[in-house]
């Protein structure tokens, strides 16, 4: 544990950077943060479809090629249209993020762009490959030979994997900044490859990659579970339910283990963040875990179920381990508001546990009885699991990103020093919020219409109406 803390020697000196563009003084910092948060909250669920959906589409197409059953082909073709639309929306919402990095945080980019930029360069190529092959795949239906067509889908899956990997690498770096030295407050001796493979990124990446499969799996399954509840139980709906639900059901329990890994890494690398998750105001030996309740500013959590020693056990796999509290750092270095982080964390863990239980029940039923669960309650739960998985995803990001505050680069640069001095941030926030709300409504409405068309229109011919 201690060697993790010792690596960035400059941190011990608590050196801070004010940035290559000179100081910042922004009265509307909160608007900038909220705008960035909003933009991520819209983009991240879309990326889940970029990461995880292509594999499911290819799986359905592969079933068609193996069995010759047109049901699978109709499903794969319908899904590929949805994939293309969601990818297009993801392309533009992702572009907005790259603009916002500069528009909102110019001092961060000017100071550290050279340290972490490499990862985004590599991500850019993944983005290219994904855009190219998604077009070839979707427009290539019934134009390319079936085998070639299936093969053109493979780069989409690979690029979804590598693209998210490089983006998460940057987030891992912001939480665990390595690959440079600070000399008199200036960045020097930049080692971009070291920054790329920072130690924080592996657990974050696996956590996010699994989350993407859960979100895409449960959301797609939810659509067909709803159809199932409405009595449409043909082969098409059944396949549309079973493929994504199986994926999500297998990943959800595994995510619990990854979550444990992530939690322990945070305990080692960012103990203040972990203390915020739990609302642990004082450093405690054999620390208890609080479920529910409300963190009080004078310390302690009110109205919670307290389980003795559990936090020490979870964070360090030792019931008597000492867990660092918020009091270990100065008040202006603690994340805030604590309850935002804590509630987001609890919601993520709670939903994640529920989803793991849904997955285990489904897998156990399949294992023992070779059939789907029969109770309507199960299908209602799957319908709920779709949106719930998105809530858990966003809560997870709130946990890690608000928990990183007040730092943009952990213990090196403060958010308030990174922000732009430009005006108009509240206007920008309202404009983006309005645009996203209306576009979100349009996309959902049109996807619902696409879903309402009978599946037999998908059977042959080129992709129409794209």
């Amino acid at each position, binding site marked *: 544990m201690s060697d993790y803390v010792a690596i960035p020697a400059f941190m011990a000196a608590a050196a801070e950077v004010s940035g*290559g*563009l*000179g100081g*910042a003084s922004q009265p509307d910092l909160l608007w900038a943060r909220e705008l960035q948060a909003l933009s991520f909250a819209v983009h991240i669920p879309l990326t889940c479809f970029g990461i995880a959906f292509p594999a499911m589409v290819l799986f359905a197409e592969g079933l068609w090629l193996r069995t010759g059953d047109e049901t699978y082909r109709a499903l794969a073709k319908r899904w590929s249209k949805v994939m293309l639309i969601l990818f*297009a*929306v993801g*392309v*533009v*919402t992702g572009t*907005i993020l*790259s*603009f916002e*990095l*500069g*528009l909102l945080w*110019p*001092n961060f*980019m*000017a*100071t550290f*762009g*050279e*340290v972490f*930029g*490499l990862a*985004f*360069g*590599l*991500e*850019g*190529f993944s*983005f*290219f*490959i994904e*855009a*190219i092959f998604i077009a*070839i795949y979707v*427009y*290539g239906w019934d134009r390319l030979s079936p085998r070639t067509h299936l093969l053109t889908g493979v780069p989409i899956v690979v690029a979804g994997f590598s693209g998210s990997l490089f983006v998460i690498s940057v987030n891992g770096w912001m939480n665990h900044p390595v690959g440079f030295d600070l000399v008199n407050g200036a960045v*020097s*001796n*930049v080692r*971009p*490859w070291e920054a790329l493979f920072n130690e924080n990124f592996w657990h974050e990446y696996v956590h996010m990659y699994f989350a993407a499969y859960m979100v895409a799996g449960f959301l797609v399954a939810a659509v067909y579970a709803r159809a199932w509840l409405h009595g449409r139980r043909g082969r098409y709906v059944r396949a549309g339910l079973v493929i994504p639900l199986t994926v999500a059901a297998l990943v959800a329990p595994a995510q619990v283990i990854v979550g444990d890994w992530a939690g322990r890494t945070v305990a080692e690398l960012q103990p203040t963040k972990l203390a915020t998750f739990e609302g642990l105001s004082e450093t405690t030996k054999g620390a208890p875990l609080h479920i529910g309740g409300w963190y009080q500013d004078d310390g302690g959590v009110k109205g919670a179920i307290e389980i003795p020693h559990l936090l020490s056990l979870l964070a360090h796999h030792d019931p008597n381990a000492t867990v660092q509290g918020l009091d270990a750092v100065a008040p202006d270095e603690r994340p805030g508001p604590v309850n935002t982080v804590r509630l987001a964390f609890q919601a993520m863990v709670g939903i994640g546990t529920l989803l793991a239980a849904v997955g285990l029940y489904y897998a156990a039923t399949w294992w023992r009885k070779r059939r789907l669960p029969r109770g309507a309650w199960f299908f209602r739960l799957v319908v709920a699991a779709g949106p719930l998985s998105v809530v858990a995803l966003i809560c997870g990001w709130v946990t890690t990103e608000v928990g990183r505050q007040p730092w943009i680069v952990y213990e090196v640069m403060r958010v308030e020093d990174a922000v*732009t*001095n*430009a005006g*108009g941030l509240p206007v920008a926030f309202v*404009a983006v919020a309005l*645009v*996203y709300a209306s*576009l979100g409504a*349009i*996309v959902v409405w*049109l*996807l619902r*219409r696409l879903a309402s068309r009978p599946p037999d229109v998908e059977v042959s011919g*080129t992709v*129409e*109406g794209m």
Partner: protein
Amino acid sequence: MAEACLALAIVGITAYAVLGGADLGAGLWDLTAGGVRRGGRVRGMVQRSMGPVWEANHVWMPFELVILWTAFPVFFGSIMSTLYVPLFGAALGIILRGVAFAVRGQAATIKEARALGALFATSSVLVPFCLGAALGAIASGRVPVGNALGAPFASWLNPTSIFVGVLAVVTGAYLAAVYLAGDALRAGLPDVVDASRSRALGAGVLAGAIAVGGLVAVLSDARPLYDGLTSGDGLAFVLASATFGLVTLGLVWTRRFEAARWGSAAAVACVVIGWAFAQSPDLLRGELTLHQAAAGNATLAALLISVGAGALVLIPSLVLLYRLVLRGDLDQQFEPLDQRFRPLTADDDPGEP
């Protein structure tokens, strides 16, 4: 190595202008295609031509941003913070354009298709204007080093910026018309070929006139830029660009649309290179030289290595995509945009057989 990274940035701008810019230009033709019935064929062609390629074409934009913030971080931070108004406008336009285009194909009535089409088309004009105006602000030396230290409006509302913004819109429209003519020729739609060809010739002549007229505006507004563009290497590339532009117009006149694509790309690239020479050695005139702006050598080397490795994957993939597109392997059945919302009549061209 700073020069090599600048060259990457120039490749990025040129590729975005020639590929992404053409997709934005197609929006202008969609906007001006006329009423539902009359404009349906051009709109259908726009929909069919852009569908498979616009996303890949668009990626040059984030690619460019990444090159700039990695290789020239202080330059990037300074321009993004000073030029927040036009760049935010471009960002909003990019969202509206992309989403409206992606879902227009799912419209069920002509009213929906028109509303989404109008959104797609107007934002397609907004984006190149804003980006061009931002480039004009940099070229005319209105962006100081620092966190939002330049004028939020005067930096991009000035003769040079407006000239570059308008030129970006018209150039995109010209490129789009050339590509549409080529695609229509392949689809065997002579009426759309003719319509696109005359649009291309009109926009091409207009772009040339704006370029010449704009130089006069630059002369009074940004004298150092004018001097750079009219002497030495800057002048050589400006003349080369003009020559490529004229040759391209000739190619369009004689209906050699494929060759015209390459000619237009060369014309755009020459202008960007000429601009780089015109303000050499500065990235921000009088504020920041290329070498002051450049990141450390370790970063530049890592960037060049990763771009080189990435290109080994990217170039064959792009070649595959454009080959499939140009061979017609990804073409959909041509359908005027309004056609699926009304019964077929006797004078409807059935499109390709």
